[in-house]
Structure formats: structure tokens, C-alpha cells
């Protein structure tokens, strides 16, 4: 089996669209609300999650035949928690500024449902390489939604992108004001809802059959 067979590419690609972890699997909503008020933390969070899902997927996939079924969730949790702690320690030692910037978010990755969801649904039943691709795909799918939400929230909430003012001053002089709701967590929920709505309306195969 080649490394980039059709099946493997599917594991990488579908999470970006038709099987997006946030909009279709509805995983990781909590952090999608918390870190999307600005673009920068959203991107960093997306990348950190991508790296950690990929690594955790590979480790769990390597161990998958030895893990006792009854304590598999605990094993997954220990692996994820250990990985996150190590990454956080390494950042503190070699990229202190980044770790200060991320502060609690690194720790929050442990609680991200995408991790447990992918470990349980994919890595437990697939070999390491497809699991790695699945992790990268899901992480990027998650990052994609985060970036879209953060773009809308930062643009309309504070008139900036990446902290740089993009809405010109004359707009404000003519009575334009930033939308305070956009900075609040509910705005993220509404935007995610709209994205899901749009995706389901375009791809009718995602809709459940009505009884």
C-alpha cells in the first residue's frame, strides 16, 4: 500500500470539508468559542491542536493492539495529557514568549473533544500512517473553522485583523461602530451555526432523513 493511496488521502482531506470536526462532527466547539475573538490566538491554537492530534493519533495507533479495552479512554487521556504537558514545558524553555502568549490554551488542548474523538474513532482501529494523516486533517479542519470565525469576529468586533486596524477612521467618523456582540462568546456560536447551516444547505447529503 502506497503512502499516499486514495484511502490515505481521504483521511487527510475529508476532515477539511465533508467530515469537518467542528461543523459536521461537532467536536471542539468549546475552544472554538474561547479563542476566536482574535485571529492570532486562533491560528496558534489551530496549529497546536493539529500537532498534538497527529502525535497522539500515532502513539495510540502504535499501542492500539495492546490497550485493554476497558481502560482505553484512560490510556488515551494519559497519552494526551503527557504530550500536552511536555509540549508546554518545551515551549516554556525554548520559546518563552510563545508560551506566555498561549498561556492557558496549551492546557486547554487536553480538554479538546477532537483529540479524544479522533483517538477513539480512528487511531484505535487504524495503522500509524493513516492515523497521522487523519490527525493532521482534523487539526487543519478545526483550524480552518477557527480562522473563519476569528476573521469575522475580529473584523466586525474590533475593526482589526491580526491587531492591525483595517476599518478606516472615516467609517467611524460617519457613525460606524464596532459590534460589541462579536467579541462575546455567543457570537462565535452564531457564526459556527451559520457555517453549519450553509454547509448543510449546499450539501444535501449531510442532512438526516426526515421520518
Amino acid at each position, binding site marked *: 500500500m502506497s503512502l499516499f493511496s486514495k484511502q490515505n488521502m481521504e483521511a487527510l482531506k475529508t476532515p477539511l470539508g465533508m467530515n469537518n470536526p467542528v461543523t459536521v462532527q461537532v467536536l471542539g466547539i468549546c475552544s472554538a468559542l*474561547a*479563542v476566536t*475573538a*482574535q485571529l492570532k*490566538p486562533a491560528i496558534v491554537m489551530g496549529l497546536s491542536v493539529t500537532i498534538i492530534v497527529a502525535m497522539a493519533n500515532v502513539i495510540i495507533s502504535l499501542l492500539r*493492539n*495492546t*490497550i*485493554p*479495552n*476497558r*481502560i482505553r479512554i*484512560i*490510556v488515551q487521556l*494519559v497519552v494526551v495529557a*503527557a504530550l500536552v*504537558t*511536555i509540549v508546554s*514545558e*518545551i515551549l*516554556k*524553555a*525554548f520559546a*518563552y514568549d510563545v508560551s*506566555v502568549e498561549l*498561556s*492557558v490554551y496549551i492546557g486547554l488542548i487536553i480538554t479538546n473533544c477532537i483529540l479524544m474523538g479522533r483517538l477513539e474513532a480512528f487511531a484505535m482501529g487504524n495503522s500509524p500512517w493513516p492515523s497521522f494523516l487523519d490527525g493532521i486533517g482534523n487539526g487543519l479542519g478545526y483550524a480552518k473553522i477557527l480562522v473563519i470565525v476569528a476573521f469575522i*469576529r*475580529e473584523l466586525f*468586533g*474590533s475593526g482589526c485583523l491580526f491587531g492591525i486596524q483595517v476599518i478606516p477612521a472615516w467609517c467611524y467618523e460617519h457613525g460606524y461602530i464596532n459590534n*460589541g456582540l462579536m*467579541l*462575546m462568546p455567543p457570537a462565535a456560536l452564531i457564526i459556527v451555526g451559520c457555517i453549519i447551516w450553509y454547509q448543510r444547505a449546499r450539501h444535501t447529503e449531510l442532512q438526516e432523513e426526515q421520518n
Partner: protein
Amino acid sequence: MNTNKNSYIFIYASVMVIIVAFLLAFVSSALKPIQQKNVELDKKKQVLAALNIFEKDAEAAYNTYVKADQLLNADGTVAAENGGFAVENAAVSEAQLPLYVCEVEGETKYVLPLYGAGLWGPIWGYVALNADKETIYGVYFSHAGETPGLGAEITNRDKFQVPFIGKKALNAAGDVVISVVKNGKVQNAECEVDGISGGTITSNGVDAMLKNSISLYKAFLTQKCEKACAAEAECSENSECSEQCQTEVVNE
């Protein structure tokens, strides 16, 4: 192999925990010295940020500008000339009051540590006062986990921190008057700064932090005259200062 046997599960779990524990302990202790250094350097950068100094080489800049990290007693007298740096902001109390005595462009500045509570966790910072011990020369705030775009905006230098410069921290009676008020509700521009809309609890936290932390130094900050006047022999020419001296003499 039957992976569902109880004995297998126990052994598996124990081995896993031991391996992970050793791994984490090893990583933690191996990286500790480097992390410690980073934390110290970061603290120096924060003190310098309160002095509006942002030089690349923080270590050298700190040694240039910060003349002493004193420890004060609650009555404002100096307990130790050095050792203030080792006191964490969270551990500042009346028993140990660190004070950074700095010199910027020939003028003495005093940097005081701040510590308080935001919405989600602790907030801290430094405030630099001019030699008059009244007006603010610069501030620096940071936080552990305030909401990005809202409470976390207290770290935004241009929007939130720069407006503090030149404001009055204390009135003549030695009460802390600097306050953070609701955005757009500044009435007394001399000592009030706009809060962050949407970050009300964090803004209130900064307000409380400034009041609590600076008032710990009240004794030190109000004993201005003897020293200031003694230093400047021409004090009598400086009517404002001599007035203050007189009132203080009367008070005593």
C-alpha cells in the same frame, strides 16, 4: 493475548503510569534551569516595560537602568538594599515590599510591583512613579488567562497602558486616586483612565489592583519632603515643595 484479563489491565496501567511519570519528571527537571532563566528575564523585561524601555538586550538594559531592588518595611524604611527582585508579585505584603529604584535619563524613578485578580485568574504588573512619587511614569500589566480581545486587552500598550502615563497616582493626602472607569466615563482626566468595553471585570480588577498594591507603599510614598528637600538645597525657592514640607511638619 487476552488483553481483558484483570491482571493484564493492572500491569498495563501501572507500567504506563510509571513510564509517563518518569518521562514528565525527567522533562521537567531537565528543563527547569532554562525555564527559570526565562522567567527571570521576563520579569526584568516587565520592569523595563513599566519604565517604557523596550530594548532587545533586557539583561543589559536592566543592569543599566535599575540601580537597586530594595526591600522596604511597612513604615517606608529600607530593610535591605537588595533582594527585592526575588520576591514574587503574589508574595508582596506589608512584611516585604520590593521597590526598584531606577534611573532613567538622570531622573530617579520608582517601580512598584502590582498583583490582583482579573476575571479568570490573576493579573499583575508594574507601575513606575516619577521622583515626586505622585505621577505615573509608565505601567505594565499582564494576566494569566483573560479573554483575548476583551480582558486581555489590558496588555495592549497603546490602547490601555499609554493613557496611564502622566496620570496622578496619589493625592496630597497619600490616598491612591488613580482609577480605571467605565469606557467613555472619564470625568477627572487627571487620575482616571478608560476601561475596556466588554472587559469590565478585568478593568475593575486592574483598578482594585492599583489601589491595593500602591497603598501598601503609602508610608514610603508620602515621606517625600525630608529627602526631596534635603537633596535640593534650594528647596525654599520651590514654593510647592516647601508648602508640602510645612504641611507635613504641621501634621507631625
